[in-house]
């Protein structure tokens, strides 16, 4: 374990709490039918987004999955805009058109919110190619799950990035299940690091429940990529505490297994380590809950995009 300053620890804790409280509220809002469609919660996996994002610079790019509320928040997309997007409001990050699975934000170079498993990896390779061709010292961080490792696009993209030595940080959030299919029921080789390493790029496994470890591993990987050493692969061992989506009876895993992982809750682990005391803990919680309350109020007060605008932004240029 690396040295952890109180300042860094508090920052990381705050970020994980923002994600957790935001998503807990989203689950309630889903029950209240304020949020519709699919809702994939990141609860349990917060240490990854919270650990990775501070190690990226403002010019770096992020490509995420459909379980991306945490990535968006940690990247700095305003919570108001993310919540409004959950509602489908015009004030949302993607003007309400994407919803939970499709948060986009040009200002923070946040390229989704990609809901085809594996589909974001080629995009990340291309963003990195653009940087390489323009000699910009940027990194593209690409998040995906263990399910994506079974997709052809994972293999094609790692090969291409390694072949062309592109500045991509591949971040595999291995939560052990592709929806309801356990890793060992889907993949002949369950050692994902070995799989990635077969494409001749450095690959490592990190405890995805330890936000400090995640941050440290990201820092060294980003530094190597920025030095021009080509892509890196990091597997982050994690676990989704909640159901896959809001339509999941969780028949595929045992309560005991969930309990074992919940005992390693990344927020609880960091709290223990920081030993904040009750007053400071309560104050931090209150601050975060206040931000979530404000985001809900913002989304509630938001507007619906006028139906007349339905077909705008399909093309830049209208057909003559």
């Amino acid at each position: 374990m690396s040295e952890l300053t109180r300042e860094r620890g508090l920052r990381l804790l705050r970020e994980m709490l923002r994600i957790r409280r935001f998503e807990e509220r989203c689950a309630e809002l889903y029950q209240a039918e304020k949020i519709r469609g699919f809702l994939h919660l990141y609860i349990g996996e917060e240490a990854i987004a919270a650990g990775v994002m501070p190690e990226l610079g403002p010019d770096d790019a992020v490509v995420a999955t459909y379980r991306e509320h945490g990535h968006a928040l940690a990247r700095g997309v305003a919570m108001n805009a993310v919540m409004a997007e959950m509602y489908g409001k015009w004030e949302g990050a993607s003007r309400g058109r994407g919803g939970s699975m499709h948060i986009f934000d040009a200002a923070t170079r946040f390229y989704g919110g990609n809901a085809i498993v594996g589909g974001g990896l080629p995009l990340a390779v291309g963003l990195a190619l653009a940087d390489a061709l323009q000699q910009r010292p940027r990194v593209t961080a690409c998040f995906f799950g263990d399910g994506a490792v079974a997709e052809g696009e994972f293999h094609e993209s790692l090969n291409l990035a390694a072949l062309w030595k592109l500045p991509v940080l591949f971040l595999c959030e291995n939560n052990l299940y592709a929806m309801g299919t356990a890793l060992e029921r889907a993949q002949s080789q369950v050692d994902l690091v070995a799989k990635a390493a077969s494409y001749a790029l450095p690959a490592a496994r990190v405890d995805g429940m330890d936000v400090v470890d995640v941050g440290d591993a990201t820092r060294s990987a980003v530094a190597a990529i920025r030095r021009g050493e080509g892509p890196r692969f990091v597997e982050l061992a994690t676990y989704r505490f909640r159901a896959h989506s809001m339509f999941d009876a969780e028949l595929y895993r045992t309560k005991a297994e969930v309990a074992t992982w919940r005992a390693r809750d990344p927020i609880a682990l960091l709290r223990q380590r920081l030993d904040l005391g009750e007053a400071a803990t309560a104050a931090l919680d209150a601050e975060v809950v206040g931000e979530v309350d404000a985001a809900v109020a913002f989304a509630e007060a938001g507007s619906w995009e006028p139906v007349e605008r339905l077909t705008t932004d399909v093309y830049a240029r209208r057909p003559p």
Partner: protein
Amino acid sequence: MKTTYRECVRQALREALLRDPRVFLMGEDVGRYGGCYACSKGLLDELGPERVRDTPLSESAFVGAGIGAALGGMRPIVEIMTCNFSLLALDQILNNAATLRHMSGGQFEVPVVIRMATGAGRQLAAQHSHSLEGWYAHIPGLRVVAPGTLEDARGMLPTALADPDPVLIFENALLYNLAGELSEGAGAVDIDHACVRRPGRDVSLVTYGGSLPKTLAAAELLAAEGISAEVLDLRVLRPLDGAAILATVDKTKRLVVVDEGWRSVSLAAEIVARVAEEGFFSLDAPPVRVCSEEVPIPYPKHLEDAALPQVPKIVRAARQVLHG
């Protein structure tokens, strides 16, 4: 000057690469091999491997990388060897290139150009002979063009590159050897409008791409019979130039659509449907479609020929709409 369709494509690529440092060409065997149809011959030597990039056989990754590079400020030209292989990249084209502008609320644009060969007629059998441009023309967010002349082979690429949205260029492989005259000053052409290639009075033959030369030949034969056929080259398959289609039907009152795609649920069906909706009272006879037969394109020449739109079929169709 005398030139070929292939040379027009090559010159357009070369000019685009020389003119804009953001442009690069990427695809299978575009570099050292010179392109499977020799459309990029010599460009690797002239422009280097950064600008003319050979890729692995990873259609999804390199098409997706083209989309990502376009998001990142480049102007990529991605070559897919044939549209048959483009299905391996369909996820990227449909779910990313076509959706990102709208789904991001207009924050991101994807100025990528994807070129691919299409069409049959070379005895390459079912997995190398399909015409899938009609499928892509179904997708909002894409522009789909089909150059059928030397001018368009030369001039559609620069316009496509200047467009902020993804543009798919379908080059019918039988056209690469098409030879003819091209004016010295030939350059960018619009990618919005259809074009009347031969004016006529009695019947409208609406077509595009590889079927254009066959349709023009049919019009010539019809002229010898005293039938004046107007040939409308769609040029742009999405968004369709509906006004031009309605205008020619309004003029001749009779419609034949020639499309190398399969008949059912096709581009040809869309054109007839539009005329039925918006030009019904212009028609003096039911429209007729000349399309590919509903089979995977077979290998032996006699069967392949029978499966495709041919000049005699077009002539017969024109007679049918005129004389019943």
